[in-house]
């Protein structure tokens, strides 16, 4: 799908949303206002936007713990998202389940599981359902380099491959599984080659180039919609902050972080858009202000939102 200027600016705005959202999260976490664990996505905005832009409502995504932007892009209202992160009754998860793996099937948002890699077969199952229902919708599943070593990864991709399921596996390879570097966890350099074992294409893409990511994703989606089966997209990227808040980052050097910061995806895209005449200082300032205000408003909404009830939790165990 070709992108109009409007699309490009939209994508840029989404990246700004992603960045400011994460910064706000960090701020609120330090004030002790948020419920549960949070894993900052700063530096990986291009992956989120490139993959989630232009998805259909009936396509499904299952995000990881990293990148709340995907929820917002799939259609979760920012107020609802923040209320969920504050653990409130009217937020994602309603305080019963954590916001960071909450779901809303009406907008194709599958709830994840807190077990790294276990989501892979679940998204694969959704793709199976789509195939059985003879729909041309697609499932997108997100996972990191760490998850690609789990048994579930191999079992699920194997099944998806042999059954030709309409699924796009997106791996954000940010070179570290929590505090363990890539070379300690696998003997290969590119995770993408694993797709070969399962009979479908694996592509490597610059995870900090939002347009490159978009291109690869759309191609994979087309394949899936056409019934040609799965694709594994490996986005080479990097997270500027630690695994979660409180990570002392003893496993990497400041130089390495600096090196990747120079490849900041937002900065990259900004330059590209400035070049195309679509962005200037004023416009950028405008966008940042607009996003900042939106976030502020949503956070305030969350602060005054009602607390969850135990009855809600009890009623959420069994369907009646």
């Amino acid at each position, binding site marked *: 799908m070709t992108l109009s200027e409007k699309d490009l600016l939209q994508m840029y705005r989404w990246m700004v949303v992603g960045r400011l959202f994460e910064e706000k999260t960090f701020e609120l976490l330090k004030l002790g206002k948020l419920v549960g664990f949070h894993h900052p996505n700063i530096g990986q905005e291009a992956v989120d936007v490139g993959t989630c832009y232009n998805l259909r409502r009936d396509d499904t995504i299952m995000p990881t713990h990293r990148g709340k932007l995907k929820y917002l892009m799939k259609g979760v209202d920012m107020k609802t998202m923040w209320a969920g992160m504050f653990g409130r009754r009217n937020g994602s998860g309603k305080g019963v389940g954590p916001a960071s793996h909450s*779901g809303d099937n009406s907008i194709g948002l599958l709830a994840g599981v807190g077990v790294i890699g276990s989501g892979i077969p679940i998204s694969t199952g959704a793709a199976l359902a789509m195939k059985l229902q003879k729909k041309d919708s697609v499932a997108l599943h997100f996972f990191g380099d760490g998850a690609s070593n789990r048994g579930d990864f191999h079992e699920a991709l194997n099944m998806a491959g042999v059954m030709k399921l309409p699924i796009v596996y997106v791996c954000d390879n940010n070179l570290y599984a929590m505090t363990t570097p890539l070379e300690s966890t696998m003997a290969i350099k590119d995770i993408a080659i694993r797709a070969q074992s399962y009979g479908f294409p694996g592509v490597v893409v610059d995870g900090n180039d939002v347009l490159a990511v978009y291109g690869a994703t759309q191609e994979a989606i087309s394949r899936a919609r056409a019934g040609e089966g799965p694709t594994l997209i490996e986005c080479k990227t990097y997270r500027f902050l630690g695994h979660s808040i409180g990570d002392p980052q003893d496993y990497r050097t400041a130089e390495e972080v600096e090196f990747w910061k120079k490849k900041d995806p937002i900065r990259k895209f900004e330059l590209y858009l400035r070049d195309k005449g679509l962005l200037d200082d004023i416009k950028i300032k405008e966008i940042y202000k607009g996003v900042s205000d939106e976030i502020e408003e949503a956070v305030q909404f969350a602060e005054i939102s009602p607390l969850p009830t135990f009855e809600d939790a009890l009623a959420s165990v069994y369907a009646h």
Partner: protein
Amino acid sequence: MREITFAEALNEALREEMLRDERVYVIGEDVRVGYGGGAFGVTKGLLAQFGPERVIDTPISESAIAGTSVGAALWGMRPVAEIMFADFLALAMDHIANSAAKMRFAYAGEANVPIVFRTAFGAGVGAALHHSQSPEAWLVNVPGLKIIMPSTPYDAKGLLKSAIRDDNPVVFFEHKYLYSRLKGPVPEEEYVIPIGKADIKREGKDLTIIATGAMVHQALSAAEILKEEGIEAEVLDPRTLVPLDREAILMSVEKTSRVIIVHEAPTFGGFGGEIAALIAEEGFYSLDAPIKRIGAPFMPVPASPILEQIYLPKAEIIIKAAKEIMS
């Protein structure tokens, strides 16, 4: 009334429910062909009737079988996933206990996971260590699951139909010894049995024997012999382990004032402990004798048939225990 085998009853249930609701599909290893339809013939004829899109063979991937069923169930399907041997539940544990059981909770009640995990359990066929276990106790402590263990063809069919229609994840334990060896009356007309209701298989006034799975039949044999000695035993089959029919159990104990609990799993840490605790807590003043539990010894299932026979709880042990508590 016509009599059919345990496996045939399950087969009928699957067939009827797949006809009734096109969202129901069967998935597992060797379910298409197997040995006359699955490892035990339970899925016989389903491929021919419903086609490969509703009877799906998988690679050997218990975790993915269970995991994809969760995803499919979330996205509008009603999978009946087979884990060929209950021993392999261990491989699917993550998706049964962590994914399926908790998904509705993660959605705060806004989504359901209507799956039936069918699995063959139990010993007595010489299948040894890894194909003979009774692992229901691994799962009863997981909120969000329903757990069913029928003992007769009649119960099997009625309960499998209910399980498929239930919107919760259900683990359905089928005793492999009973598949082809147990025949029983099953009506031609459609019927369902409600989940969570126990069944008094035999009424009696002197003691209650609570038994599950194949042990129900051991209990019934024991009851026949006890009758000749003037002891009338009541045999209560919970049929559903979770949710447990507490009222039926407490009422029976109130009636007879003595209780023996029998299951095939080892006694220590077995589900019988939960039932015993329930009776001790809420039926204390009904008891005229201590509660007795009978299960297997605390060891894996031995391979040789001679050893397996010693290992398995049986009628003789029940009779001995009954006489003890009657004196």
